[in-house]
């Protein structure tokens, strides 16, 4: 029992339990390697903290868990320390470092997914038939949508594997963030207007409401 617990903790410490079992596991591993390679390219360097890479590997789970709620970084940083996940200096990550690392991990994964999505599909014939998964089905190319007659606009042809619109590079701002940002920018615009007063020193008087 104790040995099992110790083994469990060890696997947690090693972290990054991405491989499950069987063929799916092997395929997942290859996909993860591809993602990781792109991530390394994006982050410019493999010199990242163990916490960063752990968050990369557990990105989907963390994102799902965090959806719609505020993460408790103080408690999480304690948990990370228990798992021997550290900052870039090998020290336990502070709540602030953990939060910022999570933001970086999210951006890196989104960027990597965007790059992977933009890659052209593999050339036909590069995969042996024996390696093609059972569930594979040929890509159905959507029909060409004709442009309205006389519009003079070329019809859009959907390309398999390429999203119609590029995904946002960063997560959209929350309403609260948006409001805070706009308030700060409004102050700046007010300063600009003060500097510009000479361009229109005598604005027309405001109309009375009545």
């Amino acid at each position, binding site marked *: 029992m104790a040995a099992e617990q110790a083994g469990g903790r060890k696997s947690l410490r090693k972290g990054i339990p991405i491989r499950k079992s069987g063929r799916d596991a092997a395929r997942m591993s290859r996909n993860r390697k591809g993602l990781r390679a792109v991530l390394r390219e*994006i*982050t*410019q*360097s493999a*010199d*990242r*903290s163990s916490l960063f890479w752990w968050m990369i590997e557990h990105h989907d789970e963390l994102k799902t868990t965090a959806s719609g709620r505020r993460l408790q970084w103080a408690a999480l940083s304690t948990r990370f320390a228990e798992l021997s996940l550290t*900052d*870039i*200096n090998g*020290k336990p990550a*502070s709540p*602030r*470092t953990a939060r*910022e690392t999570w*933001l*970086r991990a999210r*951006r*890196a994964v989104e960027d990597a997914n965007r790059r992977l999505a933009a890659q052209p599909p593999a050339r036909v014939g590069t995969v042996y038939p024996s390696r093609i998964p059972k569930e594979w089905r040929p890509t159905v190319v959507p029909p060409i949508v004709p442009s309205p007659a006389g519009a003079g606009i070329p019809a859009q042809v959907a390309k398999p594997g390429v999203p119609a619109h590029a995904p946002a*590079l*960063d997560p959209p*701002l929350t309403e609260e*963030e*948006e409001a*805070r*940002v706009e308030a*700060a*920018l409004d*102050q*700046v*615009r007010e*300063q*600009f*207007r003060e*500097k*510009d007063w000479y*361009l229109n020193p005598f604005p027309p008087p405001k109309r009375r409401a009545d």
Partner: protein
Amino acid sequence: MPDGQIRAANRPPILWIALGRQRVGKTVLLNTAVQYFRGLGNPLRVWNADQQNRSHTLSLFFPDAEEVTGSGIEDGMSWTEARIVHQIAHGYDAVLDVGGGATGFAKLVQEVPLLDALESSSLLVVGLFCTGPERADLDYLEQFAHADMFMPPASVVVFNSGLVLSGRSTEGAFAPITNAPAVKRALSRGAQVAVMPALTCMAQVTDRGLTFEAAMNGVAKDEWGPLSLFDRARVNRWWSRDVPQFFGALPSEWLPLPRERNASGPPPSSTGEVA
């Protein structure tokens, strides 16, 4: 003026780094900051890593400025790295002008997750992202922030109103910048915004190599005569009113205020040439 609310004696050493493409006012901003905070009594150090600008560098304005010895990007990178290590060891304040274009600093942050590496040190890095009204001025901010190379928690997006052409509306000129996603993203992460006040006769002052105090007091230098009466008045208002307002709008804990005394008081004064 800084309000002096922070207990400056207990604060960490501060490094101000001005970033942005060429000709957006990085050197002018740091020149102003050094004169201002030295005038308040903080002998902060001046680091000039601008290897492409020769006519208006911090070394021209401050003879005690330390500058990169070599001319290559690697020289700039190793020099900057050594300066930061030295600063952490000795706990002083400094400003760093990295210059524009391909810089040693850019290579440094590309190689090393600098902010993560500095996390455990007591150094407070303040990033000053300078921008004019051109959309391309935001390239640095986009690159450094989005690629997660360098975006300190203490960051300021500085709108340099001195770059707006005379007669043009400042608000209209900066509209593409204030509406840019990169700026909004930076602000959402805690960056501040500030408007660097314009001084229309800035070149008249910097060409003479004078302090702003000396320029507004009509000091002549070499073959240059003193500033005209109206230019002196312009400098006077800018230095005595606009610049203190500009720095006073920034979070006081990000300011390199002198440690020995309360920073509130009249505008700093100095005489003669810069430095």
